[in-house]
């Protein structure tokens, strides 16, 4: 069992309060995943030629400002850095790939949680309620966000095994379920050059999406590929720069509820998470069909 929550703001007001809403949703899903928690927020897009990384180190006292200064010197670019618990978000005046490569070489013990122009990923082991407080989720605004509470089945409880998993620039995946052919798929993907950090089944799904999109598939095509190539139980939610997508396995073993009002679209493992949102009792509520890709995108203003 795990819990998934997704929220997509259709108004500025919901966007301004996004963090507080997502925190309330996550707390309702505490019981479904007391091992770890994580969120992906899409917020504060950077300008042209800039990129954004979220970095993590187990030690909250890691010398982030030194890392930021060294990166600025090495890349010859401006670096703004904001720390949040044991994570740091960097706004870099260079391409994401260059910044990621520099981190991997200069600070190999620092993990890159996300890279892109708008995504920020925070995740850690421990109770979701404690996570929400430690990472001050309620103060984060944004256009949309995904959250996950984990009850581990296929691999150890670690930060790396927590969700969301980055699946490329501005992309991430959260998963409720368990995959049964992940070892085989992992080996196939490793031969294609996809690198895995854990024995986690969900990381394989993330790697699979990354590979399919690298080979030219759209997100919808990559998700439809999951129906062919992944065996097991899953409800996936995928965050993109503009929105999010939801897919359930053909048997629909794992729960999912979708709800929409004039102000927001929400997805959750259980309705009680959605019930915390404003006007939830007046929302249009439905259960996503099995083996069907649902997606939402922000309409450019």
């Amino acid at each position, binding site marked *: 069992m795990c819990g998934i929550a997704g929220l997509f703001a259709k108004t500025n007001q919901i966007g301004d309060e996004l963090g507080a809403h997502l925190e309330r949703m996550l707390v309702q899903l505490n019981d479904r995943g007391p091992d770890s928690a994580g969120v992906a927020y899409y917020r504060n897009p950077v300008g042209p030629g800039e990129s954004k990384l979220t970095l993590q180190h187990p030690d909250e006292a890691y010398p982030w400002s030194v890392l930021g200064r060294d990166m600025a010197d090495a890349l010859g670019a401006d670096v703004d850095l904001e720390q949040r618990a044991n994570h740091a978000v960097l706004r870099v005046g260079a391409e994401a790939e260059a910044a990621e490569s520099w981190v991997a070489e200069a600070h190999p013990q620092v993990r890159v949680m996300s890279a892109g122009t708008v995504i920020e990923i925070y995740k850690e082991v421990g109770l979701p309620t404690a996570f929400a407080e430690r990472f001050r989720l309620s103060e984060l605004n944004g256009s949309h966000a995904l959250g996950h509470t984990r009850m581990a089945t296929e691999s150890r409880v670690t930060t790396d095994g927590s969700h969301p998993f980055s699946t490329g620039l501005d992309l991430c995946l959260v998963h409720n379920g368990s995959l049964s052919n992940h070892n085989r798929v992992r080996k196939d993907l490793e031969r294609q050059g996809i690198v895995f950090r854990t024995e986690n089944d969900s990381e394989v799904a993330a790697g699979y999406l990354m590979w399919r999109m690298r080979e030219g598939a759209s997100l919808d095509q990559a998700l439809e590929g999951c129906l062919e190539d992944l065996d097991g139980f899953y409800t996936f939610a995928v965050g993109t720069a503009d929105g999010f997508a939801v897919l359930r396995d053909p048997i*629909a073993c794992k*729960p999912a509820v979708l709800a929409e009002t004039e102000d927001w679209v929400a997805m959750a493992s259980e*309705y*009680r998470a959605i019930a915390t949102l404003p006007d939830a009792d007046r929302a249009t*509520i439905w*259960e996503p069909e*099995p083996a069907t890709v649902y997606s939402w995108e922000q309409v450019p203003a």
Partner: protein
Amino acid sequence: MTTTAGAVETVDLAATPLRDLNQRLHDQAKAADPIGHWQVLNPSGAHALACGLDAPIDVEIMGHAGYYCAGMNKLATVTVHGNAGVGLAENIMSGVVRVTGSASQAAGATGRGGLVVVEGDASARCGISLKGADIVVQGSVGHMSAFMAQTGRMVVLGDTGDALGDSIYEARIYVRGSVKSLGADCIKKELGDEHRDEIAGLLAAAGVDGIDPGEFRRYGSERKLYTFHVDNAGSY
């Protein structure tokens, strides 16, 4: 906080713990003078609402319910004014459970008696392993509904998903809309007068008017699976 307004006992779950509500509802089975009519406010998708009731009382849930609402119901009439989550009225023994909206997966699963009415749609595995209860769904049902249903009746006014009635035993299924596909050993059967009467009775019990029982088709077991062959009886 609990207030009594006329003959209706109102319990607001925004102020009262769910366990207190369920305990009070359970206590009605032994009460000398049971409270006959209850209204539950602010259910907010809570799980296990009004589970395990065993008294002829009316419970109205004023909003959406979570998992296993009215599970194991006996004698009581539970009405959800909204949607219900996974496992509505699971293992219902008797009484009536009604949802004015839609129900998630496994509504009425393993039910042994009583009536489950879903005014909207029911999702996958509705009536799975049915053991004697009746289910009336005014909308559609999802895939694998009535899987291994042993006895009882299921009436679907709308359509069904894939694999309806897979490995069904002696339960009877009546469908007014389209059947996406039938499961193993489930076949269409003749609709006789006794079946039309049965449908009319179930629709009346569910409070559904203006539907001609002749519009339904009947589905049931072809009795061709392994368990139906007498040669295999010695294996058990």
